């Protein structure tokens, strides 16, 4: 009934200052932060509530509640970035119940039915608003987690240029499909931009190699081969060598125990040699 809502709106208008004081006190007591920014926010919440309460209470997803939703969304976002807990965030809305019920009890003391009815109304409304706040909070947290995952993905798949024409791909962590995709894309892009012909894939940092990881490695190696680059697998630990054999996997690629061996092979293949500094001088002297 719109009349009910008008009653609430009018009462909020009438007791605005008392409500605000009571609410801030409740927030402080219940562990929600209470500073000037919160006081300002609470005031805006009240204004918004008074303005919108004239409409309907049942559904806060409608257009008329948009102002309130935006307010709570901004609030949740700020709370997430400031590192508040979900409880501390929810208390902002739920602690408003106390002063509001108190006010309703005083105003409607004469009419028990009306009091119960109105308390039910505002409870439902505040619960909805509180749940919405928590939902926003969770969503923002998920966004943060998603962003971090993405960043981790990018951080953990560097392609390093070891020598002119030799790239290294030190893999760290478990290889799943999403990471393989990123690794593959990074490697292939770098192959194009650097014109490298040899890529060393180092799996020292890969904790386990099962059939799935092996399949991902094979895919990466095949894709690099299609681009005209040879791959050398390095950093195979003894346990992993055993696992590969026990699983009956055929990686079909040149593999070396350490990155150093792989680099030596890569240099040899590209027609370069690493020599002791003393020796060429000797041979040079012998030649003269």
């Amino acid at each position, binding site marked *: 009934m719109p009349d009910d809502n008008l009653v609430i709106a009018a009462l909020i208008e009438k007791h605005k200052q008392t409500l605000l004081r009571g609410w801030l006190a409740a927030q402080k007591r219940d562990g929600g932060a209470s500073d000037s920014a919160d006081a300002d926010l609470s005031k805006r919440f009240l204004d918004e509530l008074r303005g919108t309460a004239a409409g309907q209470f049942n559904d806060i997803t409608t257009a008329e509640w948009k102002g309130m939703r935006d307010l709570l969304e901004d609030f949740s976002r700020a709370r997430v970035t400031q590192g508040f807990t979900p409880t501390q965030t929810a208390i902002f809305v739920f602690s408003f119940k106390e002063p509001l019920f108190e006010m309703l009890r005083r105003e409607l003391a004469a009419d028990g039915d009306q009091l119960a009815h109105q308390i039910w109304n505002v409870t439902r409304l505040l619960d909805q608003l509180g749940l919405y706040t928590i939902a926003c909070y969770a969503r923002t947290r998920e966004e943060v987690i998603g962003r971090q995952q993405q960043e981790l993905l990018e951080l953990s798949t560097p392609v390093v240029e070891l020598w002119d024409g030799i790239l290294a791909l030190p893999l760290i962590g478990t290889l799943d499909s999403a990471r393989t995709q990123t690794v593959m*894309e990074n490697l*292939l892009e770098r192959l194009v931009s650097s*014109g490298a012909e040899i890529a060393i894939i180092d799996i020292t940092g890969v904790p386990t190699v099962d059939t799935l990881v092996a399949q991902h490695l094979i895919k990466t190696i*095949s894709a*690099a081969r*299609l681009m*005209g680059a040879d791959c050398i697998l390095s950093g195979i630990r003894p346990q992993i060598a055993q696992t590969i054999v026990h699983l009956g996997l055929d990686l079909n690629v040149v593999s070396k125990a350490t990155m150093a061996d792989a680099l030596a092979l890569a240099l040899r293949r590209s027609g370069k040699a690493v020599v002791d500094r003393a020796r060429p001088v000797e041979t040079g002297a012998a030649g003269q």
Partner: protein
Amino acid sequence: MSEIPILKIGDCLLVSIQVDMHDRLAMALQDDLTQRIVADRARGVMIDISALEIVDSFIGRMLNNIAAMSRVLDAVTVVVGMRPAVAITLVELGLALTGVRTALNVDKGLALIRSIIDDSEHPDARRAG
């Protein structure tokens, strides 16, 4: 129907595929290419697919076929200029083109063909060196 040009560089043939391939074009290309390998006594074939954004199983098979045919005629086939996205797609399709040699670009492809031909012509020289 457009025709895919075959360019001669020394004793290599360069085929640059820049249009969408379809059955008849592929058949015509295989026909032309085998004839040119014999006529020019070519030792190497380079297929440049840097212009192709989409390579499906059909083109994959065609590349394999051309490589096999060239091998029969004693010419080395090198596929050059494959894009990263294309390489990923082919691998996901399970087409690793194991019978085909690859290089990053025409330059490297030419060098690869040269080294393979040299190896096959002077196997002893390399061992001695």
